């Protein structure tokens, strides 16, 4: 806990409190959105009066903080790799009598099959190793898993653990189903 990183964090936390916790009676938003954003992206620096207005208004500083963090998050998102879909095959080894799981070729998605009495549950799991994992967990896009015949096996959004669980929708058990429909599957983002 005594690394330099934490010392910096402690210092920044205290200075943040000093800026934001000051009691300023009648405080209000002093600068418009456009003014704050232009100052943040460097296209139009604040004038001295605007600078003073910002520094003396905890409320305006809090809006500045909100915009600054939002901007950083958006910048982060622009740098995250984009994912357009992954596909996988039913392997010889996984064609045993009871199919337990299938993996996409890129190794980032697993379909798990859990027997539940006569029925099956199917769980889609995103590997934390996937380069696009952070983006998908943040944006939570609608996802779809289709079989080799194009039928939808599962549709939904990942939960915070990167999983999506549904009831297996077909009459036939997973192993014979895949053998009948092209022995393949794909995970895709759903364009809404």
């Amino acid at each position, binding site marked *: 806990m*005594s690394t330099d990183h934490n010392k910096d964090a402690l210092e920044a936390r205290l200075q943040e409190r000093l*800026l934001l916790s000051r*009691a300023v009676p009648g405080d209000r938003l002093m600068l418009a959105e456009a003014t704050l954003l232009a100052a943040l992206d460097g296209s139009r620096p604040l004038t001295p009066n605007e600078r003073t207005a910002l520094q003396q208004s905890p409320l305006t500083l809090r809006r500045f903080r909100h915009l600054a963090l939002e901007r950083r998050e958006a910048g982060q998102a622009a740098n995250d790799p984009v994912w357009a879909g992954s596909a996988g095959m039913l392997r010889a080894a996984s064609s045993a009598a009871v199919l337990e799981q299938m993996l996409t070729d890129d190794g980032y998605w697993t379909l798990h099959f859990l027997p539940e009495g006569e029925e099956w549950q199917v769980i889609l799991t995103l590997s934390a190793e996937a380069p696009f994992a952070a983006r998908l967990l943040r944006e939570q896009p609608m996802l779809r898993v289709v079989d080799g015949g194009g039928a939808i096996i599962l549709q939904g959004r990942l939960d915070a653990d990167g999983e999506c669980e549904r009831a297996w929708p077909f009459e036939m058990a997973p192993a014979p189903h895949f053998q009948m429909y092209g022995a393949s599957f794909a995970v895709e983002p759903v364009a809404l």
Partner: protein
Amino acid sequence: MRLPGTRYQEHGWEQVRKLLGHCSLQAFRQIELRHAPEPEQHTLLLDAYTEAVAASLRAHQRTSRAEAPGNSYGDSVSELALSLLFELQAQPAFWQAFMEVMAAEYARSGEFWRDPAADGILRKKVNDMFVGLRDKVDADNYIVATGRDCSPNKIYTYRMLDTAYGEIARLFAAWEQHVEQVGAILGRELAGLPIEVRQMKSIGGCKAEWIIRWSESLERFEGSPGPLHTRSKRFASLKNSPEKISAMLAEIGDYEELSSNMDRGEDSLGEAALWMEDYWRVIGESEQQEAAPDVVDQILQAQEDAFAADQSDGDDAESEPGRRGAASGEEPGPHLEALPSAAQLAREQDAAVALSLSPRYLELARTAQDAGSWTLRVLREESLPIRLAVYHKLLGPADDSYPHAWLDPATGELPTLQQLAALDGISMPTMRKRRNEAIDKLYAADRAAS
């Protein structure tokens, strides 16, 4: 009701209010309320009140009321009560108003807070303070989250509409028992199940004219006038502005839908450092630009609102034209404190042991300070316990950024203010006074830097 940024507007508020009332009554028996008529005592009284209520809230932390959800973002009732309590520090006008009320009552009936029969009156006064404060804090939260203007009055109006919607939904659900009233709301006679009853699934589907007609007919059906039609006229102008009502209903509805499966992101440890970096950069770029005189200031004008607080800002004219500390290279090098003498160490150890802290607590805590930090430079005259008390007040007893050596292993938090006072060999009032003076120094240095 949920709106962007707001935290205190959901059903859990009733419990937050009661918990704050209960803990305040306990606090009033511990603090020197008879100083309420002396304005120069208000800050110290607020400190003592905040500490006493915070301690009482912590003691109640495990009760079912305290653990109940206070809103749908995962804040419990006791967390909300505690955070609202600390908002008083940043909004002292509410405390001052409360002190004035207390002073007036004291002048009339003496130390009435010692009389259990006065509990009801006290509770009511505390309640008034926090009710006003929560709308002020949430109006500010809304502005921060959206960049749009807001006021406590506007929050109050949103809530009135939300409650009105709830009443209408209740009547719709039992329309067979309220055929006439539902007919009055819809503006027509009912012939069988009205389709509107099935179509209104959320506040976003509630029509402004239903709200207006509900309010208008309320006196006829329930005996007291509706909020748009009371004599107080508070919402009177709204009944002629259905488009305004529609927009507000739609906003509540849209946001409820949007936020229904959203967790509030907790502040992460590094967040302060991230935006402070942007802050110093923006300030620096602005300072370098000083020479360009032809840029017109874009400063927003104050909006008209009934809640117009005192406009005097706390800025004194002779703030020094200094440079900011942390990011500037012109500052003197790390300031090293004089090492404590053997006698001082021995004294410190005795004090620490008496408090069940490790004998070397102060020695280790001293080593764990960041010698080069801006904070330490500004507070180099203060003792270590005073500096720790500053952190205690500004960041709370527990913060992820605290070095281990500062924490009491028994609690995992900074020592309490009482312990810090004992470590420093001073009384609690002296501790509070010196701590507040140290915080003022930080504010002054921070302002001089700007």
